[in-house]
């Protein structure tokens, strides 16, 4: 079994490396630097790390000030607080002026686990996706998180990175180039598209494997950038397969599933059956990450089952 790591680890690795290469990289955190994996950056670059205390609103606005002073700040907290509590700061001061601020929402999704609904961010992609100028990236494994963090730092403008504490093997092929805004066909197929983002991608790949054993050819699309959505990749894949299941550990309202539905819905030529797997308009609750994923049908069997059921409706 490959080594399991978390996307937040890939983020922390990238941040440390970026700090060495680029003196403008700065980090603000809200009393969670172990959990957000900014601790090694803090140790290496104490002059560019600013502990803001438990004050996410102040943290985000301060990051804006750092960016206006010429730095490239990464603002960190749990995804639920960063995007929820500080939403108005992100709206007015990050997104509206397209400030060069990077937002790293950690422990996102129901895979946050035991802390329950208050700490499980199932709306963050929806909130951030609704903001003009905002880019939303949901890496699927630690290596992809490392690449996404680097890409976020290199581009100008706001980026929301959705990071998880769910242990994941690196499935990303070495040397596969990463580009924000470019979806990736991670497994080619003809019968159904499995479009996934984030740490659930691994289960989508396993589901495709299982479906293959039954003679169903599933294509797996890694939509790591939910905004700007790679609409042409979505339409190409769905046009080929004629059916799509979206998979995310996020509310089915406003996230990847909605984004894909918007694109398909406005495409006059496509009558593609769609099934959105995710958290169905409800809050999270306490439990282990795996228990919660199972409860919401986000298992290998749940994904494969959704694909099978969808194929029955296909014209």
């Amino acid at each position, binding site marked *: 079994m490959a080594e399991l790591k978390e996307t937040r680890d890939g983020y922390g690795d990238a941040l440390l490396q970026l700090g060495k290469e680029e003196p403008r990289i700065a980090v603000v955190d809200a009393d969670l630097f172990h959990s957000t994996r900014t601790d090694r950056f803090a140790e290496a670059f104490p002059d560019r790390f600013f502990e803001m205390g438990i*004050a996410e609103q102040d943290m985000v606005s*301060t990051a804006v*000030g750092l960016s206006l002073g010429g730095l490239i700040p990464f603002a960190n907290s749990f995804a639920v607080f960063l995007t929820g509590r500080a939403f108005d700061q992100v709206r007015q*001061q990050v997104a509206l002026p397209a400030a060069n601020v990077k937002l790293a929402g950690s422990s996102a999704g129901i895979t946050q686990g035991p802390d329950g609904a208050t700490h499980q961010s199932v709306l963050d992609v929806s909130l951030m996706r609704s903001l003009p100028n905002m880019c939303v990236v949901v890496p699927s494994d630690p290596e992809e998180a490392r690449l996404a963090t680097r890409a976020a730092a290199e581009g100008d403008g706001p980026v929301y990175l959705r990071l998880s504490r769910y242990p994941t093997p690196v499935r990303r092929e070495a040397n596969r180039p990463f580009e924000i805004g470019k979806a990736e066909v991670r497994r080619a197929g003809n019968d159904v598209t499995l479009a996934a983002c984030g740490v659930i991608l691994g289960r989508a790949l396993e589901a495709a494997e299982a479906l293959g054993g039954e003679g169903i050819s599933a294509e797996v699309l890694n939509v790591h950038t939910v905004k700007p959505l790679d609409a042409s990749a979505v339409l190409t894949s769905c046009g080929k397969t004629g059916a799509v299941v979206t998979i995310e550990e996020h509310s089915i309202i406003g996230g990847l599933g909605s984004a894909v539905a918007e694109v398909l819905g406005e495409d006059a030529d496509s009558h593609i059956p769609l099934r959105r797997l995710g958290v169905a308009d409800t809050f999270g609750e306490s439990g282990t990450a795996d228990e919660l994923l199972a409860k919401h049908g986000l298992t290998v069997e749940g994904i494969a089952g959704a694909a099978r059921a969808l194929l029955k409706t296909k014209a």
Partner: protein
Amino acid sequence: MPVTEPDLRELEKRATEVRLQIVKAMGPGRFHHFGGSLSATDVLVALYYHKLRYRADQPDWPERDRLVLSKGHAVPAVYVCLAMCGFFPVSELATLKQLGSNLQGHPDMRKTCGLEANTGSLGMGLSVANGMALAGRVAGLDYRVYALLGDGECQEGQVWEAAMTSAHYKLDTLTAIVDRNELQAMGRTEEQMSIEPLAAKWQGFGWQTWEIDGHDMGEICDALEAAAEVKGRPAAIIAHTVKGKGISFMEGKPGFHNVMISEEQFREAASGLEAKIAALGG
């Protein structure tokens, strides 16, 4: 730099000219934030015409001082100062808040030359100013950062998060100024949600604090000077002001926060200010 008597007279005249331009830009028949723009005018004039270090022809000069207008609704007063100080043509003031204008209802730094931050939703500006001061420290630049807050705005919790941050990081390149005009949108601050004892609050948060008459140019300039001399902690100036200052029928009266004035009121306001400019030797 020390301020002389002739300087003060000049600043007073400028402030009256700025008030007149504010009223002209707002005009009759449209809703505008008259009260809070006029209460903050003298402080803004002291900053733009005396204290701030900047280059109007190089607005992104890295060493410039920065002003963050946290009470973003007073931005017409800043627009007039920026225009009169050469950031953009004075003629543009006539487009205030119109569709397609660079002069939005609340500050948009991407649209207006010379603005340093986006504000409007209240309570956020001091945090941004903190970030700018920290960035200056990282870069080894000695610019100063000013944040102008409303008194009603001090009801926003983030103001106090930021006040903690400024003191924690000993931001002595930062001066916060509270425009203490005692009125907010719906009435008196002390009736809506009391903020007193305001100076004691800032002191309690670790700030060196002054209370001044925010319409007395000498006191404003002295306080800005003293604030810049403080070492090891941030400086706060509570500027006691009159909402609607300079227009007799508005002064100190609730109901002129965001309001539309008539043609007749407009003429009265403008002629009063013109007469004052004439009296000041304009």
